[in-house]
Structure formats: C-alpha cells, structure tokens
C-alpha cells in the first residue's frame, strides 16, 4: 500500500539530513508505527507522506501513486491527523467536523450521519454544539481524530494522535483506532509512547537520526533482541531514552 524508496530530506539552510535514506514497505491493513525520539525524523517522514513537501531524494508511493506527482489523487484516499489540534477553536465540534467533512466532499446527509456516529462513539454527542476552545485536551484530541476519519480513508496517517492526554482518553482513542483498522483502514502512526506502540502496532520501524535502525513485528523484534519489551529494545538500540 505504501512504499518509501530511499527517501532523504535536507531542510533549507541545513547541511544535515532530517531523514536519511529511509526505505519501507507498508502493507494494506497494517498498523505501522514509526517510532523514535524527538527530532529523530518521524514528523518529517510523516509530512512527506502527506505530500506537504517533497523528499530531497527518493520516491514515495501510495497505492502505486507517486506523492511527488500524483498528490491530488492520493489526497482522496488518505486521512491525516496532525500532532497539533488542527481545529478552529471558536467553532463548535459539529461546525468543525461539518467543515472538514464538506471539504472532503461528503454529501450533507451522509456527513450528518457520520458526524453523529463518531461523536457518539467518542462520547462527545452532548458537547457537539460547544466551542472547541472550551474542550479539555482529551476531548480536543478525539475531535482532531474524527476530523481525519469522517471520509473513511483507505490510509490513515496519525502523528502522535494521543500526545499530552490522560491514560484513559489515550486508551479510548487507541481502542477506536483498532476498530477503524479492523474495518480495513491501513494506519501509519508516529509516537514516542513505546508501550502503547507495542500493544497497538502490527509492525514498527524505529528511526534514529533520520535513519531506520530496526523494523519488523514488535513481538519478533523483542524476542530476537532478548528484551522484555519494546522500550528496553529501544533503549538498547539508541542508548538514550530520555526523550522517549
């Protein structure tokens, strides 16, 4: 479903690689975790996957479509959940979701149904008409997620979807993401919550200093490295878990 071919990125006014020669194959139906410390290159890779800017070298393909040249087609099949709360704080949850849903081209009736559906799933129906700025962090995260899945994307790209919220809200979000994945949506997910990634992801890649240092299925990787969990494995590989 997603193929990254030796992609690299050097930002303007920088001589260092933010991403350095990453190659990946992500199959349909996977929950793929892109893990690493802050500044490892996760968000740069994520941004290139979304087509926000092109890689300096290398190619990215989604459903065999080139991100560099066929981004308009790719945008129709992807859903993006940015790390920041990408919502309008002075609009209500419903107004935000209606706006983004309409921008995805969802017809009014269908949009009404899916909005109510997801608000119900995430326990936010009674807050639908409240402005986003009045929401708690966890509630904002949930609406941020719903805005990216309203149009039932084939590929869902999540950048730290549960960062900065309490364990309960995080668990709720991850549980729902599992259900979305079970419905056929491939998920690529960046995180530095390794325990969560271990439970949630079918496959992972750990990035350090712009390079992939290991990739595979979490149980197999842990077993091969004779570690007790992903966090230990990560620590052994990077030698630094202070930012994790």
């Amino acid at each position, binding site marked *: 479903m997603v193929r990254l071919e030796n992609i690299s990125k050097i930002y303007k006014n920088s001589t260092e690689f933010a991403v350095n020669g990453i190659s990946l194959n992500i199959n349909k139906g996977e929950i793929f975790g892109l893990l690493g410390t802050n500044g490892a290159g996760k968000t740069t890779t994520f941004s290139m996957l979304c087509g*926000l800017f092109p890689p300096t070298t290398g190619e990215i393909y989604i459903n065999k479509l080139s991100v560099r040249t066929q981004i308009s087609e790719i945008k129709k099949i*992807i859903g993006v959940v940015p790390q920041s709360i*990408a919502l309008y704080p002075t609009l209500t949850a419903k107004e935000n979701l209606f706006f983004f849903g309409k*921008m995805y*081209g969802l017809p009014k009736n269908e949009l009404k149904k899916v909005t109510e559906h997801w608000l119900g799933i995430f326990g936010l129906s009674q807050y639908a008409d409240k*402005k986003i700025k009045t929401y708690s962090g966890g509630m904002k995260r949930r609406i941020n997620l719903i805005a990216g899945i309203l149009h039932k994307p084939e590929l869902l790209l999540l950048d730290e979807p549960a960062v900065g919220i309490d364990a309960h809200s995080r668990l709720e979000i991850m549980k729902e993401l599992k259900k979305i994945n079970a419905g056929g949506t491939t998920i690529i997910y960046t995180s530095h919550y390794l325990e969560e990634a271990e439970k949630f992801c079918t496959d992972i890649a750990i990035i350090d200093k712009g390079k992939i240092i290991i990739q595979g299925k979490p149980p197999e990787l842990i077993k091969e490295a004779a570690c007790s969990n992903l966090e230990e494995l990560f620590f052994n590989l990077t030698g630094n878990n202070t930012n994790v």
Partner: protein
Amino acid sequence: MYKLKASVIKEFLVLIRDIPGLIILFAMPIAMIIVVTLVQDSTLKSISDSKIKILYIDNDNDILSKSLKEGLLKSDIFEIDTAINTFSQAKKEVASGKYRIAIIIPADATNTIRKNVKPIVNNIFAPSNKKETNFKKPEIIILTDPTTKNTFRQTVISNLQTYTSKIETQILFKILAEQMEELTGTTPDLIDKPIETIVFKEILAYEKETSIKPNSTQHNVPAWTMFAMFFIVIPLASNMIHERDNGSFFRLLTIPGNYLTVLGSKTIVYLGITFLQFILMILTGIFILPLFGLPVLNLGTHPLALIITALASGLAAVGYGILVGTITETHEQAGVFGSVSVIILASLGGIWFPVYAMPAIMQKISIISPLNWGLESFYDIFLKNGNITDILPEISALFVFFIITILIAYFYEGAKRLRF
C-alpha cells in the same frame, strides 16, 4: 462550489466570533471618521467658516472705527469683543491666548484722516515744489498671538487693509464732495457710494454640472473608508497565521481541492466585510456627521459607480491582506508589517493629508498607492459626478492589484513548501 460554500461559512463563523477583530474593522474607522472630520473641519473653519474672535479697542469713536467695526462684522468672519479698552490689558489677553488678535484704533484717527484730505486735494492743483508731504498718519495697532499661523495673520491683516482702504476712500470722497459743494454750490453724487469698479465671481470648476462643494466630509468619509478597508490586513493576516499555527491549514493542505478555494472563501467573506464597512461609513457621513454640525455627505449621481468602486477597493484590500498573511510568519510580523505598510500607503495615498497639498515629488509618488486609486475614484463620483467610464482607470488598477497580490500569494505558498 460545495467546498467553496463550506469554506465561506467557516470563514464567516470564525470572523463573527472574533469580537476584537470586528471592533477593529467597524468601530475604529467610524470613530476615526468622526474625530478626524471634526478636527479637520474646525481647522478649515478657523480660516473660513467659523468666526474669529477679535478684541476691538475703539479710541477713535468716529467714522473710521465705527465703519471698520461694521465692516468686520459684515464680513461674517470676525466676532468683535469690546470688553477691554487699554493696550496693556489687550496685550495681556492676547499673550494669554484668550484672543488670537486685538485691534486698537487710536484716538482721533478719523479726524486725522479728515485733516489730511484738504492738503491732499490742494496737492492735486499745487505746483510740484509746493506739495504737502508731511501727513500725520493714524496708526492702527494689531496685536497677534505669536503662535498664530502666518496664513491666519495675513487673512486678518488683509481684511483690515481692505476695510480701512474703503473707509479712507469714503472719507476722502466725502470731504472732497463738501469742498466741491463749497466751490460749485451743488452736491456731487459720490457720497456713500461704494467705489467698486471690479467685482470677483468665484465658480467651482467641475467637469459636469453639480452643486456639491468639496469639504471635510467629502474628503474624510471616502478617505477613512479606504483606510478601514485596507486595515482588514490585520485580522485577515492574523486569521491566516492562526490557521497555520494551529495546524488546520496543514490539514486543509492534505484535503483534496485547490488552495484557490481557501483563498476564494477568504476573499468572499472579507470582501463582504469591506462592503459592510463602506455602507457603514456612508451612513456615518449621511446621518452621524451632521449630528456633530459637520456637512452631510453627498453621494454624487452614479450609485452603481460608487458600488463598483467600493467592491474594487475591497478586492484590492483583501488581496493585500492575503499577501501579507502569506508572506509573514508570525502574528507580530503581520501586525507590525501590516499596520505600518497600510499607514505608509495611506499617507502616500492622500488619506491623512490631501494629495494636492503635498510637495510635487510626493504627489507623483502618491499614484503608487492603491488607497489613492480608490480615493480618487470616490472623489470622481462625489465631487465630479463621475460615472463608470470616468472611474475606469482607477477601478482597473485596483482590480489588477488584487489579481497580482492573489497570484503572488498563491505561488509564494506553493514555493514556500518546495523550499522546505
């Protein structure tokens, strides 16, 4: 169209919930129109319409002083106060700023003129070596506040010279007539008749027939409407930066559709705001300014031309706001660059100070300001009854400005991401 409509609704909701932004957009320009028009109007009136209070000390109490006083009162420019009657007191009052000017007519001034007439008449017939040259001249003292503008002083002195000259001539003719009566036994028909062989007729030169006179309202309403429209750069650029900062712009970039839809919706909503501003400013000029004793705004005779000018000016303002919102990175940058650039463009464009009163070089530079194009178009309609054909150059320039700013913003945004 569906996406554009959704985007327009979103922009509208975001905007109407930004109360401070709305205050900047509507309340501030109305306040500025009222305040600046009042200030400019009173400044203009100080040398034309409103009466200047003059302290008048009459030590003559004869034809000269009485006629001079009457003349000053008749002119409708001056208001005479005779409460004080000594030089030292008058000097004190003027120095303290209570009066801008004091006029002191010396004692026996009329008699002195009378005494001068006979030798003057005799001089006409006397041989050149026997002409009387040693005349005693009455000295009228004018005390002025040193802070008073030279133009104001010149206005007063010029008026005084006109009246004294008239009165002098009248006295001269009167005495001359009396002397002629003594010689001929008949009274010549010269007395009390104004000696005016030339009259002045002032006609305001319009290209088309109109009765509208330019005044502070006719200048300030369109001027501050243009300023208010361009001040939209602050909330508009802020809206765009906020969208970038909170990530919703990032999300929009990952959604299928053209970036022009985003720009289009902003253009539609903010153009609507500029048009509302225009209507409010016009209503202020018609209904509110007269409540402060200011002249009522006259709209000319081509409302369609007026609407087109408002829309073209609004488009130019929105285009500029979008450009500033695109090229600036932070709220601080947008706030400082946006406001300072609009103030500079306003100054160049004749918003603060009419272009015709600027130095020649600045008058030439003023044409680079889009605010000037809009203002000139409003002037054409308000003051010259201009129609659509008359304003075509200005509205075309405003429209081209809008297209250029939008294109720069569009390509700059694309290039910005490629530059990463």
